[in-house]
């Protein structure tokens, strides 16, 4: 727009044909859509060295033969970073991020209909002194609203070229690339970095400057967006808003468990079939046992949850792109705030119903360290899908299938009760953590409620693909070593010749089980259960197969009926109920502990989690067992 100098053939003086570009902008500015439009499928996700923030990079080949590496930085309102995500953005922009070369050109992405805050960010970015292009995104919406922006005047005032874009329609992308190339070709080196953390007076000053620029170059919309206001009238209404939120959640959970069932079953069968195939074609021995019992069933036991996680994330991304998730956080803030949680903790806790691992990974959006830690610590209390096979088994073995009050089935009620116990205990633990350790300090809650926008399916699917990939790689690298450890414990040493008991009895896991049995006797656990708990640390539902092993019932996964019958003969009802109570709280998932270690970068928090959850589990099982026994169910 300002510089018409298009790059001609690359000059001989061109130092390198590659350049590094960083995308910066406010949240909700369509930055990710622009990143997708620029790079298409040429994207790579990794981690920044030393931190757990995802590093998204993509490549663009320009017409002049240059390759631009585009880095998509987390959205921020200010370089004064608070959350781990924002720290990455600040350090990357300043060129201070370990292992990252400073970007050659910044692309600042702005929502053309919402310029005020981004103008202040632009002023901060200008102080950094790197060459910059402003991408005025969602320009079609601005035009539709009749917003008149004097592009030349604005470009002059902020001192950098402007390109108008519509990322979802891939409009303006070539112009943007050309403009970036022009800056590189012109050898724009930028000025000295004069950025420092602004104080209140300087923020005020920058706002005044932003306001002046806005007033001089932008004329208010003739037809401002009234849609968002009308929709908010319903969605943020104290009564209808909450009713709609809970309806949405209900539909979401229905979808998570019905849509993904077929795919999950198929994956589960696929892993069993692969295991069976290997078992059939390799001589029995250590290697086969490792491959089938350790590797395949272990990794498979976690990957069967991938369909559920994807369905859940599909909804979350869809609602996020529509602009609803901020409203959900708004509506839930007081309910969660009563327990000392941030409204933003809502999404991580929601994800934890599928699996705590993606839930814990998504706590990075929470600004504050204490809020984030509390959310991480209580996320595994939400009833994840891995508990369902265990709950189903025990319920079918011990809870008679009778109707309560004529309509409600007792097993269904117990299942509901177990879910409720998870939620209530998560809120309770967070409440106590706040009171006891952090003495009631409550972080500020300030959140933009973005205008509603129709989600773009391609972008939703791309984000979904990315989420799935991150889950598989992240979870995979943590799960694998854990599986190997658990397999080792359950397999060594092997059974002596002529042994009559199941082999696991003679293994390290068996010995640990026997050793722990006296400790677990007061909660009604026999040694078979105690032994089954050890492999059950690989993942909660592995306990079903492990119980099958110790009770020598083959294929307990596929046909739990036989196992349920056996259990109902061997266990008292009190023991069955205590086992359920144990599973509500017990940290029976090594992968979750691994993810907590990774996300908090310390062994302290996973240790705290292990101790407090085991303590709660023991206490709950003890109370349930002793009460049930006293009531004659022993």
């Amino acid at each position: 727009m300002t510089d018409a100098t298009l790059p001609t053939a690359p000059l001989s003086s061109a130092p390198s044909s590659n350049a590094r570009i960083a995308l910066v902008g406010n949240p909700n500015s369509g930055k990710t859509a622009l990143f997708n439009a620029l790079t298409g499928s040429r994207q790579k996700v990794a981690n920044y060295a030393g931190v757990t923030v995802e590093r998204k990079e993509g490549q663009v080949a320009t017409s002049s033969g240059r390759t631009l590496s585009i880095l998509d930085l987390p959205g921020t309102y200010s370089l004064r970073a608070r959350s781990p995500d924002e720290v990455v953005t600040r350090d990357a922009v300043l060129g201070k991020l370990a292992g990252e070369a400073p970007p050659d050109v910044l692309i600042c992405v702005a929502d053309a209909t919402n310029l005020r805050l981004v103008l202040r960010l632009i002023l901060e970015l200008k102080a950094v002194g790197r060459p910059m292009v402003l991408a005025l995104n969602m320009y079609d919406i601005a035009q539709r609203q009749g917003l008149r922006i004097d592009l030349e005047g604005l470009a002059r005032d902020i001192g950098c070229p402007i390109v108008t874009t519509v990322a979802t329609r891939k409009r303006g992308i070539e112009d943007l690339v050309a403009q970036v190339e022009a800056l590189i070709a012109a050898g724009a080196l930028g000025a000295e970095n004069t950025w420092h953390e602004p104080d209140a007076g300087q923020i005020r000053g920058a706002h005044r400057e932003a306001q002046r620029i806005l007033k001089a170059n932008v004329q208010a919309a003739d037809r401002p967006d009234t849609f968002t206001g009308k929709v908010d009238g319903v969605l943020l209404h104290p009564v209808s808003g909450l009713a709609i939120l809970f309806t949405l959640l209900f539909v979401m959970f229905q979808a998570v468990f019905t849509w993904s069932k077929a795919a999950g079953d198929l994956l589960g069968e696929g892993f069993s079939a692969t295991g069976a195939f290997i078992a059939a074609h390799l001589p029995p021995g250590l290697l086969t046992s490792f491959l089938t019992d350790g590797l395949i069933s272990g990794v498979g036991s976690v990957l069967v949850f991938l369909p559920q996680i994807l369905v859940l994330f599909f909804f979350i991304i869809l609602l996020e792109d529509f602009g609803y998730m901020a409203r959900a956080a708004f509506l839930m803030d007081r309910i969660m705030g009563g327990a000392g949680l941030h409204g933003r903790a809502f999404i991580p806790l929601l994800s934890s119903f599928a699996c705590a691992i993606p839930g814990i990974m998504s706590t990075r959006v929470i600004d504050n360290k204490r809020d984030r830690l509390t959310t991480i610590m209580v996320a595994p209390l939400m009833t994840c899908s891995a508990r369902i096979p265990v709950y189903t088994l025990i319920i079918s073995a011990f809870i008679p299938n009778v109707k309560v009050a004529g309509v409600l089935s007792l097993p269904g009620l117990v299942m509901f009760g177990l879910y409720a116990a998870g939620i209530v205990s998560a809120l309770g633990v967070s409440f106590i953590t706040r009171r006891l350790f952090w003495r009631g300090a409550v972080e500020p809650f300030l959140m933009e409620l973005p205008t509603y926008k129709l989600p773009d399916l391609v972008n939703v699917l791309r984000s979904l693909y990315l989420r799935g990939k991150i889950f598989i790689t992240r979870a995979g690298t943590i799960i694998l070593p854990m599986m190997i450890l658990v397999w080792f414990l359950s397999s060594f040493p092997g059974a002596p010749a002529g042994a009559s008991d199941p082999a696991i009895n003679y293994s390290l896991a068996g010995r640990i089980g026997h050793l722990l049995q006296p400790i677990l006797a007061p909660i009604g656990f026999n040694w078979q259960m105690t032994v089954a708990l050890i492999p059950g640390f690989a993942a909660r539902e592995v306990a079903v197969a492990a119980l099958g092993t110790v009770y020598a019932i083959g294929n307990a996964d596929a046909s739990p009926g036989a196992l349920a019958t056996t259990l109902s003969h061997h266990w008292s009802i009190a023991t069955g109920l205590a086992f359920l109570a144990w599973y509500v709280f017990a940290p029976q998932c090594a992968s979750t502990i691994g993810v907590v270690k990774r996300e908090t970068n310390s062994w302290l928090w996973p240790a705290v989690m292990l101790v407090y959850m085991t303590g709660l589990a023991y206490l709950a099982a003890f109370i349930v067992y002793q009460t049930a026994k006293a009531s004659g169910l022993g």
Partner: protein
Amino acid sequence: MHDTLAEPEKTAAATDGATVRLSVAKPGDRGVIVDVQAGRQSGDHGVSVDELHRRLLEFGFVEGARIEVLHEGAIWRDPIAVRLDDMRIGLRRRDAADVWIQLDAE
């Protein structure tokens, strides 16, 4: 107070509209922000008063901005959703206590 810039002198409402804290405003209230202060809120915010002050400013709670309270939560009428110039922002009442608004004259 780390704020070097002197707070603008504010006396009582200059016009007929009353000056109130945003934390006590009701849905439908509209006006202009006349003062954003640091450090007069009660309770532990887990961040310094200066930090809360700067966060408010960064979100656009600055003197002169138009503000309208749009919605409030179901429990204890908290949090509130406000329109701030062209943006919508959700915040808790306790964090809004240091934002003073002059209500429009009816």
